[in-house]
């Protein structure tokens, strides 16, 4: 099935669920106002469901909206979920933020989502892109008076390239067939680019990576894990974290947020896709993800049963990092 068929099947599933009254709302993606800007869309009627779409630029993690819905809208919702999103949903269920019964998962195998910044960089930062379409393994990029064909593989998001499970791990409807679970990238080769550096080198690499951070918190707000009613950076009594652009405040924000994601981050890449400054936010979380996997043999969201390592204590838990 190509994207058009998948989009059509999503629309059909959504219309049916809404018409039957099985769900109050279907959260999916619709075309945005700019190329490569597919955006979250909430469909409440079968007619609205006709606006749903599916392309390689569906980069938001829609599980995020399951825990941020206004109060009083606690009814059942359906959500379009590729592999990582389904894993985030499993995580939210395990963390008792939602129940399995509240959510109807419309599963879609992810073809690997695409990075609009990479597309822009490849055609040239000065060029205005007016249309982008996918043709099999190619991306056709168009602007005023020019056209360029890019291989999909070259513009895939970093996290999609190394994804460990592209198929939905839970679903109530499955759109299309399952695909190969991985894209072939080796997560451990790229997960921790700073690992080999000494402490001073890591600090320098950190400062370089985050130098353009404006602390807009889009990375936090796009992440389905960051559902705390009061984030530690917003706490004012006591105030844990300074509000300035000084390096130490920026560092505190990113380090603490990354640690809060330990054993929970599904490497969905929503944080990086949201960042307006193109910052490689996953350079911290992917290292922690790797540590959790190596130390506890645990990868978040893959199944509904296993207990997250940071929620449980075992006498034989590794303790080597306590110094």
């Amino acid at each position, binding site marked *: 099935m190509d994207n058009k068929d998948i989009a059509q099947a999503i629309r059909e599933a959504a219309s049916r669920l809404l018409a039957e009254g099985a769900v109050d709302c279907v959260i999916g993606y619709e075309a945005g106002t700019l190329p490569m800007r597919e955006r979250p869309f909430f469909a409440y009627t079968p007619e609205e469901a006709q606006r749903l779409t599916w392309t390689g630029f569906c980069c938001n993690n829609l599980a995020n909206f399951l825990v941020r819905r206004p109060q009083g809208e606690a009814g059942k919702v359906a959500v379009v979920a590729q592999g990582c999103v389904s894993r985030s949903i499993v995580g939210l269920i395990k963390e008792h933020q939602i129940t399995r019964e509240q959510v109807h998962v419309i599963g879609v195998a992810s073809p690997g989502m695409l990075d609009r910044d990479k597309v822009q960089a490849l055609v040239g930062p000065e060029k205005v892109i007016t249309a982008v379409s996918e043709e099999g393994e190619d991306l056709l990029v168009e602007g005023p008076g020019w056209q360029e064909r890019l291989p999909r593989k070259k513009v895939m998001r970093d996290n999609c390239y190394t994804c460990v499970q592209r198929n939905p791990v839970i679903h109530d409807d499955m759109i299309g067939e399952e695909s190969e679970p991985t894209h072939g990238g080796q997560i451990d080769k790229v997960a921790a680019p700073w690992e080999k550096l000494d402490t001073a080198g890591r600090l320098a690499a950190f400062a370089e990576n985050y130098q353009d951070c404006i602390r807009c*918190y*889009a990375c936090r707000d796009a992440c389905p894990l960051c559902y705390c009613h009061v984030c530690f950076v917003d706490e004012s009594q006591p105030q844990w974290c300074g*509000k300035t652009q000084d390096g130490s405040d920026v560092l505190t924000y990113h380090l603490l947020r990354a640690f809060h994601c330990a054993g929970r981050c599904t490497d969905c890449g929503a944080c990086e896709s*949201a960042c307006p400054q193109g910052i490689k936010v996953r350079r911290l979380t992917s290292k922690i993800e790797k540590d959790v996997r190596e130390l506890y043999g645990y990868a978040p969201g893959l199944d509904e049963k296993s207990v997250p390592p940071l929620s449980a204590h075992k006498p034989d838990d590794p303790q080597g990092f306590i110094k």
Partner: protein
Amino acid sequence: MSDKILNKDQAASFLAELGRERDLFAPAVSQGKVVWAPLEPGQEPLWRFSNTALSPKEFFFPQTECLMRFKNRQDGEEGMIMHPEPELARERALVNMRPCDAKAFGVLDLIFCQDQMTDDPYWRDKREKSLIVALACNDPCPTCFCTSMNCGPHAEAGADVLLVDLGERLLAKGVSDKGREAIAALPEADEADLAAAEGAKQKAEAAITTQVAMDNIGGREVMELYEAKHWDRVHESCLNCGTCTFFCPTCHCFDIQDETQGEQGRRVRNWDYCMSWLFTQHGSGHNPRGAKKDRVRQRFMHKFSYIPLKRGGEIGCVGCGRCVQQCPVNIDVREVVRDMNA
């Protein structure tokens, strides 16, 4: 005549002359992005670019700005006495600012410096010490909608000098006294140059493809707009991050905090944003904009209803399109204004 001509091959020396008394800044390409950067004397600025990713707001209203310093002690003569930070040491020139950004700071003047009681010395100091040499746009982006927002690709408001790119030459229009003085030594433009600049202006205005009407908004009761149905949908996908406000040249919310370390203390002002719940949280625990919908509505009502009402019809948006480009969930201000105006 205040219209002059500057040959591009002499621009570097003209700017070096401006730079004798001033620090120079201009847009430049850095790591695939267009950013504001210092312009070295003798260096030629970038003539072709759409606009900088972030707005130049930082020059007048830094994201983090120390306002005062104090000694963190209850006793002693100096204890808790506030000392203002020094003013800007040197004048500066901001070269090739886009007309929308120049206009934005004119709008912000009306907010930071309203009257005797509301007159922000930090803003005023930086504004008075800056010469804005704007560069008219000949190739607007698909996200630009300045012509709908009291502005335009060749608009002059807020600039001291407006440059119009004519190819080999630039037409330099003196807009303010300060600007006319800066270009006084340049040769006069002739009729053909003026005609070419006028042609470029018309072409650029015609290239702006999005028109956003605001004609109904002003005539509506504020409460009618406030209670309109469409707000129930606009906010649904909003993440309440600070992206749109931080990229916006006219957003200007801030938070002031005292920071102390041992005996050192400073009072520092940081950008804040109406999209954050914390921004309006009262000490009592009450939050007048407690729900996401309230916060999203505030951003748009402020720009398109409250500012026009309070500031003689000026709009709190200049149509630069940055929020459209950067919003992680593509909430497009043009669609929201259409809904408000419908």
